[in-house]
């Protein structure tokens, strides 16, 4: 097993593993990110030995071969999804009030 960049590991030619720290990333953000990649890759999540980590396995699905950049892009997208999740938690209630106001004229 070749370690490329912590915590990305190349398992085989067509397979990589990413170790995600659940102290930083929520399950919701991780699932949303995994879902985004399911069109091009096989994605599998499993509990890691460390209870505060989750292993995400990437395998090549079709002609799009998984590589280190795929996993790095995943890391960036994970940040994006976590920010969306956090912003929704912090400001979602304000958004809901505004949207309710926006549709009030057609809900009368």
């Amino acid at each position: 097993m070749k370690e490329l960049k912590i915590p990305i590991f190349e398992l085989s030619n067509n397979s990589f593993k990413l170790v995600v720290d659940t102290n930083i990333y929520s399950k919701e953000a991780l699932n949303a990110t995994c879902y985004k990649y399911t069109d091009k890759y096989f994605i599998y999540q499993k509990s890691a030995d460390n209870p505060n980590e989750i292993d995400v396995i990437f395998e090549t699905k079709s002609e799009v071969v998984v590589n280190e950049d795929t996993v790095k892009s995943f890391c960036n997208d994970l940040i994006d999804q976590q920010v969306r999740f956090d912003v929704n938690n912090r400001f979602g209630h304000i958004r809901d009030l505004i949207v309710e106001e926006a549709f009030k004229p057609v809900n009368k």
Partner: protein
Amino acid sequence: MKYKYTILPFRFDHFNKEEYLLTNDVGEYIFLSNKDFEKFINYELDMKSDLFYDLASKQIATSDKIEDVVAMLATKFRTKKSILRDFTSLHMVVPTLRCNSSCIYCQVKRHESSDHSADMTKKTAKNIVKCIFEGPSPYIKIEFQGGDPSTDFEMVKYIIEEAEWQNLFKKRELGFVICTNLTLLTPEMVKYLKKHKCDISTSLDGPKDLHDTNRPLQDKNLDHHEIFEKNVKMVRDIWGDDDCVSALMTTSKYSLGRYKEIIDEYIRLGFNNIFLRSLNPYGFAKEYKEKVSYPIEEFVENFKEGLDYIIEMNKKGKFFVEGFAALLLKRILTPFATGFVDLQSPAGVGIAGAIYDYDGSVYVADEGRMLARFKNYYFKLGNVNENTFQEMFNGNQLHEIIENSCNECLPGCADCVFQPYCGADPVRNYSVQGDVVGHRPTNEMCIKTKAIIHYLMEKLHEGDPETINIFWSWIK
């Protein structure tokens, strides 16, 4: 520990090396030196200082009873969001896709002038008007788009008269606009439009060579710019009012470096405003990006030069407005609400404006219709021949889009210092970045809007009295 004063919610960012910019939800702003900013957030400001009074007057801090200040902020916030009060009032109708132009950035798949396969039927037109009047807004503006609607002027007349008939009973404040390249308008048509109070909106991209490059006519023997100029005069003569026709410009790759000439051409042709508009990434503009598009940073630099040129011109006594700056300045300088479908929060798509295609399909925005030309129907709400108003305008699809277009709750926007002046464009996000939320660090609209607001803030901060007076003169 009891603090001397209460800090109210605000957003902030470094404005330059020496100063921070602070804004709050209702659009109040203030510049603080780095030192004062530190003092402020550490509750060390002298409450008798002018700076504290400034902060208090903008409801960014208070030493009064907090409930009173919150009530004032709530009133201002309601005013800013009063654009939501009436629901959709702008109804864009496409009587036909026929057009006699072949613009290099055309955002719809136009049809040849002789191809009637995308003409609206009277049954569809009647159902569209019925649907429009089912909306709750006391204001109804029907805007004819295309193709070029003048290629099916009989249908335009049919819709105008059907709407006027409906309005005898519904009694709304009804208005019309026709968006046309002007080249097919005859004096009879113009007299009809004048009689029915249908304003004329057209496109002008600049001097003859540029206009004809961006917007050539399909008949290569015709001179677009020459016909345009002749017909602008004809329209104004019949109307007896130079302001009866407004123009919109689009910046193609060929327009860069030529803003002064473009502005001069607007003035030569008697217009008193311009909206320096970047290319929208739809239709041909997306398909032939390499040929017609440019990095957004280049647009921003051109915009700044154009704005400076317009300000200098105003200083010399010529009243001339840059429309995008005027919109943003109204948001920055006044407590009033400003609806602008492409840049508001929540986005105006579907709840401020909607577009009805020639076949009765209803989309949340013109750009949604353009995506549909390329077989993407995400922004289609339904069809007036099959769906009710409630199904289309109060359905899950529109709710989902709107929920994802409040910049108070979007990543990268929620804590942006310019959030109160900005908005979301879910259609553009979807078109360019694959989902309605978008990704701000790589979002061209975000890069452009932030750069332009920053530039306007620089002007305001410089405080040149002449420039400030000019800005105020632009705010209606």
